[in-house]
């Protein structure tokens, strides 16, 4: 694994304290793994020519120049979009959960959001931030200048996941708040009644927004690694249940898979990109999810 790609791993990124660096490392690591530049081919306009070097896409060769000069030049493009992106972050108490005590779902979400923010700003897309638990707690208007990354990161760095969650209400609020069609990237563990959430997602989609749903679960929530007798406590409600984990694992995994499958199906019907994640997964999966969705649209 190259030194850059290792930054796609959460356990490595965790060791980097500065969020901007984290974002940078994740994105660079991700881009390094791609064979072609992700920025080419969508929402860009011509900026300049440069000499062809092996590795460039031959379709970009400007044959008029070749006819005139007998040399290969490729056309260079520059982003000219104004896709407004919103990073909608769930900061309910459950997002602060980590079983292994290294990276909470929230940390993972921040890294991911930071990387996406970095990615978009480097494309000069305006990015805004929406933070919610039961309702929207904080918001940053979308901007595409370089300074926006620092602003977003400073807000993210100061967030603490506390309190209860009402994803559906928050999404409804977001739908009402956004006036222009935007790309809404939702980061949540979706640990609430699914029906209102699905309705809220539909509503959001109905308003013309593109939605990418990053469903982030803790590694423990995704795999249920407990053994023997355990008493499980819900952090938000304080409810407790005692059970035999070994015996229960199979049932639990079936439940969680059914839950994800339900969201996958609903999102597919609504035209929403659904990216199931857990905190042990590399970031590139999340970024690839984002890019795939983006490419499909533009």
């Amino acid at each position, binding site marked *: 694994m190259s030194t850059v790609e290792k930054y796609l791993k959460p356990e490595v990124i965790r060791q980097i304290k500065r969020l901007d660096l984290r974002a940078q490392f994740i994105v660079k690591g991700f881009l390094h793994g791609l064979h072609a530049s992700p920025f080419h081919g969508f929402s860009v306009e011509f900026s300049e020519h440069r000499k062809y070097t092996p590795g460039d896409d031959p379709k970009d060769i400007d044959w008029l120049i070749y006819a005139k000069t007998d040399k290969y030049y490729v056309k260079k493009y520059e982003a000219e979009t104004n896709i407004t992106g919103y990073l909608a972050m769930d900061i309910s*108490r459950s997002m602060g959960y980590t079983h292994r005590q290294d990276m909470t779902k929230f940390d993972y979400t921040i890294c991911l959001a930071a990387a996406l923010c970095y990615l978009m700003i480097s494309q000069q897309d305006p990015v805004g931030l929406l933070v919610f638990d039961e309702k929207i707690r904080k918001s940053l208007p979308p901007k595409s200048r370089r300074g926006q990354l620092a602003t977003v990161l400073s807000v993210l760095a100061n967030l603490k996941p506390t309190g209860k969650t009402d994803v559906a209400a928050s999404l409804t609020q977001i739908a009402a708040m956004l006036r222009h069609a935007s790309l809404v990237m939702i980061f949540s563990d979706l640990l609430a009644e699914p029906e209102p959430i699905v309705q809220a997602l539909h509503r959001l989609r109905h308003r013309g927004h593109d939605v990418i749903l990053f469903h982030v679960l803790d590694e423990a929530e995704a795999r249920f690694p407990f053994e023997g*007798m355990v008493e499980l*406590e819900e952090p938000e409600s304080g409810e407790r249940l005692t059970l035999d984990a070994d015996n229960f694992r199979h049932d639990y995994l079936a439940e969680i898979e059914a839950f994800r499958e339900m969201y996958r199906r609903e999102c597919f019907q609504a035209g929403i990109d659904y990216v199931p994640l857990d905190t042990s997964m590399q970031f590139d999966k999340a970024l690839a999810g984002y890019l795939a969705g983006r490419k499909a649209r533009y």
Partner: protein
Amino acid sequence: MTFVNPLLLAGAGLVVIPLVLHLVMRRRPRLVEFPALRFVRLRHETNQRQLRLRHLLLLLLRMLAIVLAALALARPSLRLSAGPIGSQRAPVAAALVFDTSPRMEYRHENRTRLEAAQELALWLLAQLPPESQVAVLDSRRGPAAFQVDLGAARHRIERLETTADAQPIPHVLAEAARLLAGSELARKEMYVFTDLARAAWPIDAAGRLQERLNEAPDAGLYLIDVGVAQPANLALGELRLSGQIVSSRSTLRIETELISIGMGDKHTVELYVLEPDPAAKVPGARRPEKRGEQTVSLTPGQSRSLEFRVSNLNQGTHQGYVQILGQDGLGADDRRYFTVEVKPAWRILIAAPKPENTYAVFLREALAPESFRRSGLARFACDVAPLDDLPQKDLAPYAAVCLLDPKPLEPLVWQKLADYVAEGHGLAVWLGRNAEPVKTFNEPPAQDVLAGKLLRQARSPEGKLTLAPENLEHPALVAFRGLAGGVPWSRHPVYRYWQLDALAEGAHVIAPFNDAGPAIVERPLGRGRAITVTTPVSDDPNRDPWNLLPIGEAWPFVILANEMMAYLVGSGSEELNYRAGQTVALELPADRIAPSYLLTGPDGTQARIAPDVKQHRLMITSTELPGNYRVQAGGPEEGVDRGFSVNLAPEQTRLERWSDQELAQFFGTYPFRLARSKEQIELNVHTGRVGRELFGVLILAVAAVLGLEHVLANRFYKKG
């Protein structure tokens, strides 16, 4: 169930410990924060139920382990038969039952089965606690009693010997159970030393045995098998003689079979007849003279028939034996003895209407053919007389009288015939066309002799009616037994016969016609017998005959006439060959009864026996020893010199064994134990007295339960 340490059973009370721990000191599960609890909640109920079930299962296993451990430490033992509890050294009421049939003489590893049984019994006797009551029973008939002490029991066992008249073991065992039931000792035991032969354990005795055993329900029953699993032996079957009383110069036929159990190869069987020994110093002494020898090849399990013929026997009593040459495992069944008496030809009076010789020709030729008469070989000496001579005729010299197609006779003549028969003679009446008017035959004097009232002459001119003997058990028909189905009765049709109305009291049909009507009917009268044949054998074939019985190849008629006459003269009535233990009755001539008779046994022992003067009989009860016996009185010239033979019953020497499973049917639900060696006896007796120790089983169960508990607990409470 009994316990060595019953107090330790209290340890089962510790069973409350896991219960208390379960209820009070429940282990707290690890508390884990888990936001996705909603997915757990959905299936939690089912999981909780399983969890409770597992808890309960573990609790039960732990409690079970404690109870089993307490039970094991109390050292329980299970008694298969309910019996008294106490020390092993308490006195025992023991009945030692020995099979002493001749079969126990079977020699294996240079010991007879009885010797093997004695050795085991003496050893067993030494194991019995002092003060024990011991009864020693064997196959002889007689009441059982406890011996005075163990020494007397030992002495009795040492003196045991086989008996030819052995009763079945279940009978002896029932007697032992009765004896033990009366004992005051709490512990009762029965030991049966047997070779498990089928003959010793007849299946029909099982019901009675079980009833008797249940009278002593707490007695331990031990079968000690001293038999040989795969016996090898040759045996001679019973001797079948052509007659025990034969006429002089007729041929004696002796049939038997050679039976092989587990032995193959060729074997020789010899026939010896005892002849007077002129060289002997003792008068009347006899020596065996070989009169026949046959060699047969046998495979194991096979049996072969043998037949010997002895001719030229003079008048008098002849004895002999058939024996297998060589030695085998059991000597008792290698020799069979026989006695026959040779008498002069029986005198028969044939009375017929005139011309009597014409009437009598068929019957006389059948009984005493011309050529036999000339050579003196005929069994019967036939006198022919006209019916009219009967009133004056002295019938005493005749063994039997035949009436051929009788006319109406004087009542006095019928009365004379009835008296003659009642004295012990035979009468045969062949009814024919002269039996008219019927009335005279249906009146009392005639009806005292005839088999029933004459109804009418029946006709069957088509020739379909024949004799059809069904049951060939009757002595007059027994000669046809080997030919059943092969006798051409249909070639000798009966056209006419007398239908009988109802048979006289006591009369029974020996042979019917094929339409089920009576053909030959026997009527016992006093000490004699009268036979009525409903169709004659005296018709001239040229004169519209009533039947064709004596015509053509008439061998069935010849056999029938001969056997019927032999039956009427009583040639088979006196028994000269007995089984061991039977009471012998020898008829004595009424006019020459000696005050006492000298009985010489097979072993040379002699005894004086007084006759039963009233019955003209000599009764002899001491017949346990197989062999040839002689009875003499009055010196060699004028006196009586008779004899008889005693043989073992064939089943006494049959070595076929019951399997252990089959043996169980004798005892039903009554528990018994089977042992073959001292070790097995020791183990069985110990188990029977003390019971089967359950400690080992229980400890194993504890280990199994604990192991299961460990596995389940590990599975249920894996450390996270």
